[in-house]
């Protein structure tokens, strides 16, 4: 019998070959599926529960699918607290906050990379260190300052203290440093000033990086909790995460879970959808600095 060359080839690299099928499923897909389910099932459970009727939630006989899916829980939440207003506040704070932050980051990063200035390194160091100062530590002094300026229960009071952006500046600076200086020099020879160079060259070629900063900023603004919690106590000015706190019974007694799951869906779903569409950019922004050289 002549040796069959195909059979002689090692097959360990082919996961679905006959010999490897069992191993692939046990060692490959089972852990993968398990990890995916652990994350996915609680979120699915939340979505399904939010569509259930009260009798289906407050029961000891669990069923997965709602018998007759309805948005009653969402309506209940809206009649208990100004739910639509929370959502609107969150949108306003997120849109204004992240827009300004991105603009500030672009300007600062441009200045740090392309404008000559004697104390550039000091200022960059200042921003770098600020990156490591946790915002929670500054909560009390900022509260005293903002309250003194009459900023409690105002949009600007919620937005202003978070506006300075070390993260966005740092990330964009690192990107701007990789741009070839030649294109900027040629623009300079053509007589372009900093303003033209910024908007006609640097911004257009940096759209992916700016988008990453924008996405990460949107995610963190939307999820921001401790500061809005402290600076607002009027329901009309609360953001979604703060407003949801209002729905929870502080005494730990039986909760209206249908309503709470509706609230959870409203605060989680927008970011989940953005993430599903653009996860590559968000992941690269959030794991920035992790890649070791």
């Amino acid at each position, binding site marked *: 019998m002549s040796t069959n060359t195909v059979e002689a080839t090692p097959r360990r690299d082919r996961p679905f070959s006959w010999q490897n099928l069992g191993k*692939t499923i046990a060692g490959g*897909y089972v852990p*993968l599926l398990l*990890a*995916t389910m652990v*994350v*996915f099932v*609680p*979120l699915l*459970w*939340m979505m399904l529960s939010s569509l259930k009727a009260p009798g289906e*939630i*407050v*029961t*000891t006989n669990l069923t997965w699918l709602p018998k007759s899916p309805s948005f009653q829980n969402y309506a209940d939440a809206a009649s208990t607290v100004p739910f639509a207003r929370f959502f609107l506040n969150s949108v306003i704070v997120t849109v204004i906050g992240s827009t300004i932050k991105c603009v*500030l*980051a672009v*300007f*600062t990063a*441009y*200045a740090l990379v392309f*404008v000559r200035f004697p104390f550039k390194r000091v200022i960059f160091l*200042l*921003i770098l260190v*600020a990156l*490591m*100062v*946790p915002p*929670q*530590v*500054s*909560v*009390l*002094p*900022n509260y*005293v*300052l903002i309250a003194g300026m009459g900023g409690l229960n105002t949009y600007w009071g919620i937005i*202003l203290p978070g*506006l300075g952006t*070390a993260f966005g*500046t740092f990330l964009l600076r690192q990107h701007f440093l990789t741009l070839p200086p030649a294109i900027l020099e040629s623009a300079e020879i053509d007589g372009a000033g900093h303003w033209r160079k910024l908007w006609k060259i640097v911004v257009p070629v940096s759209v992916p990086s700016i988008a990453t900063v924008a996405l990460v900023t949107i*995610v963190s603004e939307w*999820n921001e*909790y*401790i500061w809005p919690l402290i600076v607002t106590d009027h329901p009309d000015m609360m953001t979604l995460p703060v407003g*949801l*706190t209002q729905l929870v019974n502080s005494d730990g007694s*039986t909760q209206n879970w249908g309503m*709470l*799951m509706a609230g959870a869906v409203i*605060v989680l779903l927008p*970011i*989940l959808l953005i*993430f599903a569409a653009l*996860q590559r950019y968000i992941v690269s922004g*959030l*794991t920035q600095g*992790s*890649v*070791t050289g």
Partner: protein
Amino acid sequence: MGRLGTSNAQTSRAPVHRPPISTPKNRRWNRRTRRDAWVFAAFAAPNVLLILLFTYRPLVTNFYYSTLDWTLGAATATSVGLGNYVEFFTSPDASSVLGVTAIFTITTVGGAMMLGLLVALALNQRLKGTTFARAVVFAPYVLSGVGVGLVWLFIFDPTYGVLSWMLRTVGQASPQWVNDPKLALLMVIIVYVWKNLGYCAVVYLAGLQSIPTQLLEAAALDGASSLRRFTSVVLPLLSPTTFFLLITSLLSSLQAFDIIRIMTPSGNGTSTLIFDSYLQAFGSYNRAGYSAAISVVLFAGLLVMTAVQLRFVERKVHYS
């Protein structure tokens, strides 16, 4: 006066002592560099000023507040020197706060990193669907801690939750979970690990993928078992990634707030430093000075870790 007047070389024709040629220092400040300085100021000042006002100023102010006996909202405060710190480090409540912080930090960091590594190993295979699985596992990291906390509160509900139902089907009574001070901390830890392990997994995955395959193949040819290859080749090569994750996870774990606050609104054996600092100032106590002292303690801890991180980064730069 006369000297001052004559020193203005541009307008007066009086004898000039200094040569009119610009020195190198002057040349640096010619028209263009001056304009650049203005542009720099206009572009960077708003951001830098905001950072100074809302990030750096609070650090200093916090130190000052921490020396005061001061009720939040009161017009007057009395100085107590280091009294707040003495009180914090001698009171039994505080030692429990430090203990809870230590338990929470160690278990969440350890749990998320170990599970993250396991998930990363599962993801680091040439199988269909790993890209999708990676996205799913990472997703909780970007979600609102408040929303995530609510979902898990429901799952953990002693009467109507999925977990109690599962326990009932195997004939066990459900514990009171969130209402039991012994279990509340465990719950909060589980949820926090769930939310963060995807981050560790994705970072570890990047580390795994940067390991040269030749090294693993060489080890395999030498007859190393897959466990041996993992402990002797993969883990050592992952050590920079592990260190990076250790530091960033420690920092973020010490700052964990939203999950703890939504699951145990007034603390139930779950008061970490950050949460206790919040409760002291904005809970029912209104003790602003004492709260500031706690946040200074927290900041000191974070500072030490940041210093360690900077040292490490510096060393790595030298070695590469």
